[in-house]
């Protein structure tokens, strides 16, 4: 039987609980996002007394049903209108992933619709395809966030080959820890970016690991330690981050940000050349950084490649990007009751 034509009438519910965020979205088969609810960014926040517990599967348990309800309500879709249920099963924190999986399995069973497994990394890069509104693959993909800094050769939306990843800290984590050292707020990416605005990115020359190395790996741990040494000396003396002069913080933040961005862009350039790809997709929370976006645009202009970065709400964790589940659905890759979660990064495909 030929597959049914793509239709706006078929909708899937996607559930995301791989780390901190609990999220749900309804996406139709044309990849129209009918709703996208992220627990920390909605009125649900208020329902929990303004405090969203950041960490713990218990928090996901508390939030998941209200988030699903809200996603259905905003999409004006009833449970019985769904054609499939998708859920992120990897990579992530096992206890958190299990909350989403349990909810998704239950719904799929009760509604008697297919259950589709989603890889969080593939979803992040599929956000680029959704933003572009057309097929972008094959492409080089970079997922850069608090927990990930990984480069992929993306043969198609569901066939990724890992080219390299961080050997220590993720870029977003480096921003968080630099912000802590400089007395700036959490999350560190946005607070470093704001502090860096008045600063000189060339004021301090911080290390750029593997910059002239052909291997497509990242390391931000040495950069973090260099910042500490610059701020507190060697060996580091006790200091009060809040008492650092504003102009010094601005220069340190700008120089630190420049070092992170330089490495990220350089490795993308290398990967594009090594794999002769014309398209670069970037996903993850760090892709929200303005300086990074500027440098990516320069890369696009100089290397004559297309660089796609989704809007902010699709960079940070969300369930709309799990629309990649439609790709699996169309290929008949649906899961059964035995579907389980996987903690780690997929290294070989």
């Amino acid at each position, binding site marked *: 039987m030929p597959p049914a034509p793509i239709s706006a009438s078929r909708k899937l519910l996607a559930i995301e609980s791989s*780390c901190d965020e609990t999220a749900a979205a309804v996406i139709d088969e044309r990849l129209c996002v009918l709703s996208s609810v992220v627990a920390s960014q909605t009125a649900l926040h208020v329902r929990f007394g303004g405090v969203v*517990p*950041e*960490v*713990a*599967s*218990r928090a996901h348990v508390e939030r998941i049903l209200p988030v699903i309800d809200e996603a259905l309500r905003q999409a004006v879709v009833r449970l019985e209108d769904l054609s499939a249920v998708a859920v992120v099963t990897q*990579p*992530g*924190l*096992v*206890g958190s992933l299990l909350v989403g999986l349990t909810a998704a399995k239950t719904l799929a069973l009760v509604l008697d619709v297919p259950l589709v497994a989603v890889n969080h990394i593939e979803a992040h890069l599929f956000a680029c395809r959704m933003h572009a509104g057309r097929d972008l693959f094959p492409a080089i993909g970079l997922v850069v*966030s*608090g*927990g990930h800094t990984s480069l992929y050769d993306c043969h198609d939306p569901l066939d990724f080959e890992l080219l390299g*990843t*961080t*050997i*220590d*800290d*993720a870029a*977003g*984590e480096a921003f*968080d*820890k630099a912000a*802590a*050292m400089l007395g700036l707020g959490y999350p560190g990416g946005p607070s470093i970016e704001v502090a860096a605005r008045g600063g000189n990115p060339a004021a301090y020359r911080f290390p750029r690991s593997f910059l002239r190395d052909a291997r497509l*790996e990242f390391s931000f*741990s040495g950069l*973090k*330690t260099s910042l*500490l*040494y610059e701020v507190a000396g*060697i*060996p*580091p003396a006790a200091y009060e981050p809040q008492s650092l002069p504003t102009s010094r913080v601005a220069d340190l933040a700008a120089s630190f940000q420049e070092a992170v961005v330089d490495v990220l862009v350089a490795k993308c350039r290398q990967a594009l050349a090594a794999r002769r790809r014309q398209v670069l997709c970037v996903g993850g929370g760090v892709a929200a950084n303005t300086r990074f976006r500027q440098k990516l645009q320069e890369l696009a202009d100089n290397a004559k490649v297309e660089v796609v970065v989704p809007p902010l709400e699709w960079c940070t964790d969300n369930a709309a990007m799990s629309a990649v589940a439609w790709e699996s659905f169309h290929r008949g890759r649906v899961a059964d009751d035995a579907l389980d979660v996987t*903690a*780690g990064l997929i290294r070989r495909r």
Partner: protein
Amino acid sequence: MSSNEPQSALPACWTFLSSSEDTTDRLGRVLADVLRPGDVLALVGNLGAGKTRLVQALAAAAGCAPGEVTSPTFILVQEYAGRWPIYHFDTYRLHGCDDFCELGAEEYLTAHGVCCIEWADRVAAALPADHLRVEIDIVGETAREYRFSATGPRGREIVQQLSGAAA
């Protein structure tokens, strides 16, 4: 137990000065030879001290895949398969012991693996009574001082073997 001496006769502390990353890798090998499943390393040290780096050295010596050990700050806990499983915790983002227990800490701590806990001071009350405390201090650009101290009989045994192995 081979010793009939009272446990308090064993040294409770051992300090190791590492001048370079290579020396840290050597420390990892010494540790891997001494540790056994069920042991708990409580890592204490400021940002940039080298907590993750020590776990990398230990994991490499215990036969884990190279490149597998990264900072678990975001994901909170990672597992590595080597000579024994290594459960690598990072409590930097946790709010306290409740969050730590929520992660399934008790199951990990009683599982048949070696637990390495970064920022262990933040979950001190949830640590098993008998563990090995590892305080790391930056003493030079590439130099780190590791202070191992025991909080119970198994910890003392490890400290004794470490000081013997490195002598």
